[in-house]
């Protein structure tokens, strides 16, 4: 009796991970009830993320370090590589971009057109920028400027804006806030060609504008004067560095990835042990489940790429 009990325990524990040769069933951790428990676990974990984000805004969020200087340099670098001219930074467009980002946080949306029907052009016109051509690119939850610009270039519709030869000027806003309960960094990129041409900033002005972004000027008198435009006083952009307590993007993807790997390992054990001990189970095919999960694993790795664009 004293010998059989430890053996029995060992036998039971082992079959949490490998199939049972007599019962012809999968390992306990791959049983139907276990899979059902995993489903509930996923709902609970990700549901609690939503609950925490609503109860303690700012605890969960998307960490980022994006600067307008880098965004401008990288955008122009892509244009130069395609034989196009550099875009000049324009304060009115940057103000319009900032207003757009603030509106998205205020109204709780992430779209080119607001729920109340406000279009990107409305923000541009409100800054008295009389455009011939205009365009807008959006991005959120990226970690670096390079990732943002690369994502835009990888998308044909966004690339069309970046590579559009009709545009002469550009404006950026990198604004932090809470969107849908999550600490979020929104990037708005606005393109334009002024009808009057009076908004053209010189290279020297560009540096001033970008310096002003870094020092976060607080002047809110945003009515631009086309003749004598106080460029460096018109841009107010919050600190683009966001460090929430938990980076939700990394956390959620890491949890997903670890979980898929866990199931994959259990299935591999199931296939190996069944073959080794010639266990024929009256269940679905482990190889099929494994293939499906391996594809999912690739998808999860792909989703590790940060951010979204619009």
């Amino acid at each position, binding site marked *: 009796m004293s010998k059989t009990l430890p053996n029995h325990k060992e036998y039971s524990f082992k079959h949490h991970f490998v199939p049972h040769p007599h019962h012809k069933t999968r390992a306990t951790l791959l049983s139907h009830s276990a*899979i059902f428990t995993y489903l509930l676990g*996923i709902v609970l974990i990700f549901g609690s993320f939503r609950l925490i984000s609503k109860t303690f805004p700012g605890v969960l969020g998307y960490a980022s370090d994006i600067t307008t200087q880098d965004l401008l340099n990288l955008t122009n670098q892509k244009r130069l590589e395609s034989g196009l001219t550099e875009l000049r930074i324009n304060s009115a467009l940057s103000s319009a971009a900032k207003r757009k980002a603030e509106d998205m946080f205020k109204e709780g949306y992430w779209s080119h057109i607001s729920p109340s029907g406000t279009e990107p052009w409305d923000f541009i016109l409100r800054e008295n920028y009389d455009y011939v051509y205009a365009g807008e690119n959006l991005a959120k939850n990226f970690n670096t400027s390079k990732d943002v610009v690369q994502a835009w270039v990888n998308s044909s519709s966004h690339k069309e804006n970046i590579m559009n030869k009709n545009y002469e000027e550009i404006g950026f806003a990198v604004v932090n806030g809470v969107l849908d309960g999550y600490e979020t960094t929104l990037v708005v990129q606005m393109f334009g060609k002024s009808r009057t041409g009076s908004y053209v900033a010189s290279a020297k002005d560009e540096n001033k504008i970008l310096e002003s972004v870094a020092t976060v000027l607080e002047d809110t008198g945003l009515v631009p004067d086309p003749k004598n435009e106080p460029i460096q006083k018109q841009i107010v952009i919050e600190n683009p560095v966001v460090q929430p307590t938990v980076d939700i993007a990394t956390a959620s993807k890491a949890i997903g990835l670890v979980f898929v790997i866990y199931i994959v390992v259990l299935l591999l054990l199931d296939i190996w042990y069944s073959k080794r001990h010639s266990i024929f189970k*009256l269940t679905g095919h482990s190889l099929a489940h494994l*293939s499906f999960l391996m594809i999912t694993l690739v*998808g999860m790795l792909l989703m590790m790429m940060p951010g979204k664009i619009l």
Partner: protein
Amino acid sequence: MTEQEKHILHYSFLALGLSVLSVFFVLFRFDTRAQLILAALGSLYYVLWGIIHHALEKRLNRLTIFEYILFGALVFLLIFSVLSL
């Protein structure tokens, strides 16, 4: 056609379907909504493949159907949870 050849044919259909969906998943990697639709289609395709495959093998029963539904739901819920955050 031998049992092994049938098996290979069935698995080829699974691999082909999932590969096509994976290619679209990569193409739409910046479009969350499209990715969610593709994940749903992938899960549905997998469940249907499992049912048809086991029916053709004359090994279909309620528990097997339930197993494929569980795996399909597991993958979809996982992708949905990660993408919707």
